């Protein structure tokens, strides 16, 4: 249990530290690396919740897929020029409002504790011996099949749309 706590704080520090460094670094590639660190921290937190499937998918998709494409684009950009430009914009009122809202939300959850969450009933029968992946697949393809299919349709639309936009003549 102590190990879990230590690991939790380690991963949480990774997430927060990575996040802060992502927005404060001037060099875009360094920012991307710290974003990767932050995402790896999130993956670690998933693992601590024994959600192994999410852990692996988080790394495969975010670190291996999305961040690789990010870096791919960053490398094609003139970094010296980008580093000279202003790093922060002046919309601090909007930012303050967002931060305040999130802060209020966190404060509410901290004050109310576990009572703030409506936990699903499934958690009680979680230890049926089935792995995390199997249970996730079971829920995704039976209980939540319609939302799942709608989400995949949405992604298909995005894929087709990007092809249409990128290619003038098909």
């Amino acid at each position, binding site marked *: 249990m102590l190990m879990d706590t230590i690991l939790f704080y380690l991963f949480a520090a990774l997430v927060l530290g990575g996040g802060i460094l992502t927005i404060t670094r001037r*060099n875009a*590639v*360094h920012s991307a*690396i710290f974003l*990767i660190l932050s995402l790896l921290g999130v993956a670690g937190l998933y693992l601590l919740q024994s959600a*192994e*499937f999410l*852990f*692996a*998918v988080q*790394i*495969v998709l975010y*670190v*291996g*897929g999305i*961040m*690789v*494409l990010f*870096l*791919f684009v960053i*490398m*094609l950009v003139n970094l010296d020029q980008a580093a000279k430009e202003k790093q922060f914009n002046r919309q601090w009122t909007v930012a303050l409002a967002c931060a305040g809202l999130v802060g209020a939300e966190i404060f509410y959850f901290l004050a109310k504790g576990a009572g703030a969450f409506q936990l699903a009933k499934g958690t009680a029968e979680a230890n049926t011996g089935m*792995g*995390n*992946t199997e249970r996730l697949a079971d829920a995704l393809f039976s209980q939540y099949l319609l939302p799942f299919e709608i989400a995949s349709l949405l992604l298909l639309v995005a894929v087709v749309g990007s092809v249409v936009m990128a290619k003038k003549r098909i």
Partner: protein
Amino acid sequence: MQTVLQHPLFTPILVTLVIVAVFPLLAGYIVLVERKVLADFQVRLGPMRVGPHGLLQPIADALKLLLKEDIIPADADRSIFWLAPVISTFTALTAFSVIPFSKTIYVADVNVGILVISAMSAVGILGIILGGWASNSHYPLLGALRSAAQLVSYEVALAFALLSGLMVAGTLSLQGIVQAQMQRGIWFVFSNYGFMIVPFVVYMIAATAETNRAPFDLPEAESELVAGFHTEYSGFRWALYFLAEYANIFVVASVAVTLFWGGWLRPFPSVKWLALLDYLVPLLVFAGSGAASLVLVKRLKDPLQQKVLVGAALLLVVAGLVYVIPAVNAAAIGPFWFLFKVSLVIYLMIWFRGTFPRFRYDQLMDIGWKWMIPIGMGAIVVNAALGMLPPR
């Protein structure tokens, strides 16, 4: 002592130490085999100077790499230049942790094993991209961009091929996949009425691309990009990239063997009397190759080299004879079959390199997106349909 031996972490830590200690040497010898085999394809001799028939070449190479000057380009991003090969090596070696070498010899039996390997190979791409970018030089950057595009494309095909295999296995755990093949008494490559050979071929092609090997070695095409992403690397850092590359080759070969060729199972695992093979094949492989190299001794002129070769041949013969002892055989036959099959797959990949000319970049993308991915998707559909049929 007894408590140490029975501690649940004893085998994992031991196996980890052995892998980390032995793999660099093994990688060196895979390189030697590769050079020798390629030399044979091209009717040359290959390395011959260090040791009998170049047998000690890997050790000389390793020493040379360790002692070489470590050069960092003046305008390089030093921290990332330092970090990139570390990422590559770390991820490549981490992937070993879920590979089952036998029923008892493995580091961890994770129930998302295959996904861990995909995740590690996905993160490993970052090492290549960052290394190419941090060098602050043209060829490495071009190599890095090529490899990013190539690896992201072929990862999709690889995932589809793996999915077909996983549908047959019904589990993501690599140990579980081997157990499933044992229970059904069939290697998955012959499963589904032999149709599984299609995803296996897709897997092998995608895996060759994924490990940046010829004919898909565009990221390090010598004729165009000097050495691609690791042009500016030298000495030990370069050795780390090299180690990572061969570790990746070993890992993709292990996944192929585990998912399609029965992992540490012997051929026909359900036929009892064929347990004979457990004794016969190791004896034939080890003692046979030992005897064959004894014949070669006469051709050597240097007496010292003759002695070294005799020693190596005797070691092989002894290794073969040790496998006849039933107790040793029971413990060591799993790793034997596993490593035997892995070496065959690695030999196949070397064979590819010796046979096919390098693809052009547009051909590479064509093969990836217009052939491999559709075939992979189709294979999933067909496999799903065949899987619904009553078992034979």
